């Protein structure tokens, strides 16, 4: 596998991990609708990114496969998280958990973004104009995902950190 192939593999892994993390944060904070629905939107974007990356894998010798989920297990885990959120979502501690989860999500999004930057640099050096054109909007979307997480943290933090119980 070429080094670019390795990078594609790395990027693919970070996109699928980010998707899973968005999904998990959404379900863990299902009672917080301002987090729940946008996180699902982000997860769907990551899934679409991963699919695109798989399409490029062959050119660089990387055989990439969609993440294997057991539907039954995933559904059971989501249902547990969702229910937990409904039960605990009215307690104040859930706010601090939300900030912690969003911070972790932010780190993952930034790591994904920096992988896109590396891929862009590789595509330039390889003169792979098709790849460069195709990755532009996806890289930008990852940037926007990190901005959304920042936006959500900025909105949510004052009430969680300052409003007293």
């Amino acid at each position, binding site marked *: 596998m070429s080094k670019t192939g390795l990078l594609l593999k790395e990027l693919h892994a970070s996109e699928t991990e980010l998707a899973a993390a968005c999904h998990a944060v959404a379900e863990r904070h299902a009672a917080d609708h301002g987090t729940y629905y946008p996180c699902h939107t982000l997860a769907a974007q990551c899934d679409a990114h991963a699919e695109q990356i798989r399409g490029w894998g062959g050119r660089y010798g990387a055989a990439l496969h969609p993440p294997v989920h057991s539907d039954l297990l995933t559904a059971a885990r989501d249902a547990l998280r969702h229910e937990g959120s409904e039960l605990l979502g009215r307690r104040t501690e859930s706010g601090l958990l939300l900030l912690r989860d969003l911070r972790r999500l932010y780190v993952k999004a930034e790591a994904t973004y920096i992988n896109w930057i590396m891929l862009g640099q590789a595509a330039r050096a390889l003169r792979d104009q098709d790849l460069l054109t195709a990755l532009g909007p996806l890289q930008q979307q990852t940037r926007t995902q990190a901005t959304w997480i920042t936006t959500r943290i900025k909105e949510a933090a004052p009430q969680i950190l300052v409003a007293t*119980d």
Partner: protein
Amino acid sequence: MADRTTDVWGARTPFGAGDRWPSRGDRYLTVPDDEVERWVPSACVLCSNGCGLDIAVAGGRMVGVRGREDDRVNHGRLGPKGLYGWQANHSGDRLTRPLVRTGGALRPADWETAMRAVTDRSKAVLAEHGPLAMAFYTSGQLFAEEYYAQALIARAGIGTPHLDGNTRLCTATAEWALIESFGSDGVPGSYTDIDVCDTLLLVGHNVAETQTVLWSRMLDRLHGPDRPRLVVIDPRATPTAREADVHLALRPGTNVALLNALLHELIDNDRIDRHFLDAHTVGFPDLAEVTAQYPAEKAADICGVPADDIRAAARIIGTGQRLVSTVLQGVYQSHQATAAAVQVNNINLVRGMIGRPGCTVFQMNGQPTAENTRETGADGTLPAYLNWQNDAHVQRLADAWNVDALQIPHWSPPTHAMEIFRHCENGSIRFLWVTGTNPAVSLPELHRIRAIYGSDRLFLVVSDAFPTETTALADVVLPAAMWGEKTGCFTNADRTVHLSERAVDPPGEARSDFDVLLDYARRMDLTDRDGRRLLPWSRPEEAWHDFIALTQGRPCDQSALTYDALRNAGGIQWPCTDRAPDGTERLYTDHVFPTAADRCEDYGHDLTTGAQKDADTYRAHDPDGRAVLKAAHYLPPHEPVDERYPLQLTTGRIVHHWHTRTKTARSPQLQDAAPEMWVELHPEDAARAGIAEGDLVRVASRRGDLVAPAVLRGPRPGVVFAPFHYGYFDQADPDRHNRAANELTRTEWDPVSKQPVYKVTAVRIVKVADAAAGGRPVVISEPGLSAVAPPQPPKERP
């Protein structure tokens, strides 16, 4: 006079392009003409159209209304709600004394006791939990002076970001679509644009029922010489859609795909104004690239409309010379609301059709005074369209209010209503004051709302003129004066400001919200940095004076719009300044938009996620006066239909009722025209479930259910329609929650405008009882049905 509950739009007065819309003097009096003692100038508060009217007074009571023929908005016309709705003021169950909850029940009290309860709790919450535990939820029904007082109390006095209006449910997307495209709120056009247009594009806007007088104006053009061509985008065969040249009856929740396809058709066939795009916009390459992915066939698949119809609509839009586009709740209350509304702006921008006679886009308002929450900062913005991320703007506000800039919360946007309720739910907000709105029927997912509002740890104050589903949950209820019983200004959907004068006294001990807010500020000892009263007024005119001074130089400049000017001239459109004392018909005639970084109201958002742009990012690509074309991909709704919930519910409004019927159910004619809840099913869906016309059916979603008689004239297979007006206050058992459409809806909102999603909910239906045996009789009265029945051939009036 004809029964205007059936003759909804009145007699036609057709006119041609550029002619003056003929006058028609509509009136409804309950006494003979010669018994009227005074006519008091005002405007209608039963939709966003803001029709000028006079209130007839005799013996200290309102006895009728007449449309003002010299008013620029309505030329004398009034709709059924305007003609009959005022009678609610006389309703026998008006709240006339404050109520305070003691021993678990609301009991009458005097004002001193009630206000002491409110301020004692406010002070205790502030002392123990701080300003972030205080919240205010206001209306689209108060007057501008009252909203401005609320903004001052919340943002400068208490120092809480938690003030929003129920305008969040009706008009937030209008506001944000305008900000995202043009840099600032402010509807660009004028109703006179309808008089000269040659093409009308109505998107999710059933104007025939929501703004009946505006539809009369359109109908008079449609029935006149040189009829404009009409394209309607709406899932339902509304009276509006039945007049259309092309009706695109799309699947609910697919607006973005359809609008992208229309844009693609315009661009692909070079029906765009390249000179205008080059000189006055940014973002076209991105828009072209995104919309290119929506050929008509693809949109046809997503939206469930024929590709040829999409192309036909695009041909009409692309060949007209003067295009007026309008947008309302079909867009605003769907998911991707702002993304879709912005694409309608984009249609006008790529055609270069804005800022000229007959060329504009109306992002419509819902409620009569919605525009004023936006201008005064009583919704999720700062007053005078100031930008919360712009330190110079915040400083200007702090100087005007003589408070430290740090006192005004501006670490993030003012909290939107749905997030306020979330904070109430998790207990970090302890005090909530609701004015002039009925969230226990109008918000989504009502069982959740009842639980939040009924929680012991939340102290709930409700100001209203009537007992409602929300006052029933309150700790203190304050009886409010209504329209006609107080003085103040409000602004309609084409920037026309009216002064509404006090015609009669409020009943009993009811007081105007303005007086109550002043009393609250005084009792709370809210002062500026020099220890002077923060609200130094005694009359609404003084508050108005301060507000218009604050707008000077801003896009919504109303600095010359005094009470005297309004008394002399009637309705005036802002901007109204020393240089334009008679007002301004349309904005952006020079094609310079308020997008410059120092001027804009907000730096904007990503339309898909709602990610907020910051100052540095914005300044790096300062559009500096150009309109911004923003593209968005279609996303399917977050709650798709499935095997268990195979149908899609869309909710909406009907011509005879307003919001949760607090007023219209108390007007005899309006109540008789539509007394009961119903649901509309498509005959195919009904047949599959063994449901016949009039049968009682249960509609259930993942969150709740309702029971209502079925009417088999539903819009399209797979779609159920339910009016959202009906609640419980007039039910035999108000605790049996099986009637309101919002029992079914879910808590989701648009990522940019934060407007809740009411139009896409997965549901299932099951028959409960036969119409004949146990079912209720068909509940829409004949007048109600015939008002929206297919049109008859035009008849000559005697």
